[in-house]
């Protein structure tokens, strides 16, 4: 059963998804028919679900390819996971399909990722305090 990973923050703004991996600092926006399709999560069979969606919405082959590629990217980025059982809590979104963008698009925002993932640990002195790292101290201050 595929569903949004629990650690992912997901919000719907103006018929667009904003996804945030709060651990890595990676943010994503998702637009277009993929929003309507992914609002059906959780589901078990991606191919079957996409087939039904395409048929129901009379979606083009190009759009089908876009959604498939986005799906693979979401799996790769660990935003969606495949678990053996149905999750206890699932998201529910009210989407106005008349107002979604024509084409599916996933955009990644990685501004904060580097800062969040850098290794902060340095050697420590005899009292347990890390030795001063001159380069690190300049990283804050906003």
């Amino acid at each position: 059963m595929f569903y949004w990973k629990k650690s992912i923050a997901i919000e719907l703004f103006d018929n667009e998804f904003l996804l945030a991996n709060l651990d890595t600092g990676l943010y994503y926006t998702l637009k277009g028919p993929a929003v309507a399709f992914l609002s059906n999560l959780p589901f078990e069979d991606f191919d079957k679900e996409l087939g039904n969606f395409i048929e129901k919405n009379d979606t083009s082959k190009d759009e089908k390819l876009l959604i498939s590629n986005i799906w693979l990217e979401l799996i790769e980025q660990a935003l969606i996971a495949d678990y053996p059982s149905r999750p206890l809590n699932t998201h529910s979104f009210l989407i106005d399909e008349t107002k979604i963008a024509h084409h599916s698009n996933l955009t990644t925002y990685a501004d904060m990722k580097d800062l969040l993932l850098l290794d902060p640990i340095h050697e420590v002195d005899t009292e347990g305090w890390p030795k001063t790292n001159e380069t690190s101290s300049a990283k804050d201050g906003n």
Partner: protein
Amino acid sequence: MVIKEYFEDVYNRVIDQKDNYEKTTVAVGEHFADIYTSDSALKRVFFYSIAHLITYNALTLSSLTIYCITDDILEERLKAPTLCADELSLNGNYNNSDSDRYFIFYQPWLHQIYLYDSLHNIAIYWVKGINNIPWWEPTFSFRIIFHWWSLKTPYQLIHSGAISKDGNKTFLFPAPSGSGKSTTTLQLWLSGFLYLGDDYIMIDVDKNIVYQLYSTAKVETITLEKFLPELKEKIINKNKLQEQKGILHIENLQKIYALPISGIIMPNISSGNYGIFECNKSAAQLAIAPTTLHHLPHNRDTSFRKITKLVQTNKTYIWNLPPLRDTLVNQFSQFQVNE
């Protein structure tokens, strides 16, 4: 390491010296915080940005207690916490899986620690000595503690500026560093608008209200020379601009404890198409959440939900900033009239 044990050890040592502290009460939104400082020099440093919040007639009991101390007051020097490197991120977030009650903010290259007991709302800020205080820390005094304390409330610290014309039209200016947030806020302040903050402000997401918090602003030297030349002489750290941003104290700050929010405007450095335009709410969320959550790392999911509520409640705009101040002020004034 069990943070509970570390907190209790530090707290007991801090409390042993309680008779030697000076107590000051400040207003934080509609609440009050008692701040105990271990020496007058430390108090001067940390109250520079929050002096306007000091109150002598708190209407209710304080809901937060902060001990702000140096090693000088302790009988024995404080030892560093032994934290698991795997669970500590660069920005001081420690995933203290052993407790939801205790928090620690510790950046291993700095000799300072923030600790918090969320059950009793007791916080400790320890720094080795006055000379070990990072230059930026007193520009937003106790922000980590205010963040922890606010987790159980509708309050949320936001990395944003805020400006109001007359108290009725108040707008937030969120943006990452380098996007024109401080420049815009300070130019509008110099043009007669009310200043609520340029870096961190406190929001009540249930009431959609912004609270003034800090009276300091931080600006890059190049920004000062290009856009705010009249403030150059007022920079308080003139001799350290090679390694620090310029720090300004907003003089004669009008005490504005709470104003209703009218909208969210994202400043955008632009080469044309100047003006303020309505934009998608996801752009506002992307302007607020990453930078705020990077600086305030604990309980990001809670803060993310509060930020979402703020964004969903308000109209959102992007402002392609014009290069001239007169044009900037005129655009904002006209925008306020029309909104």
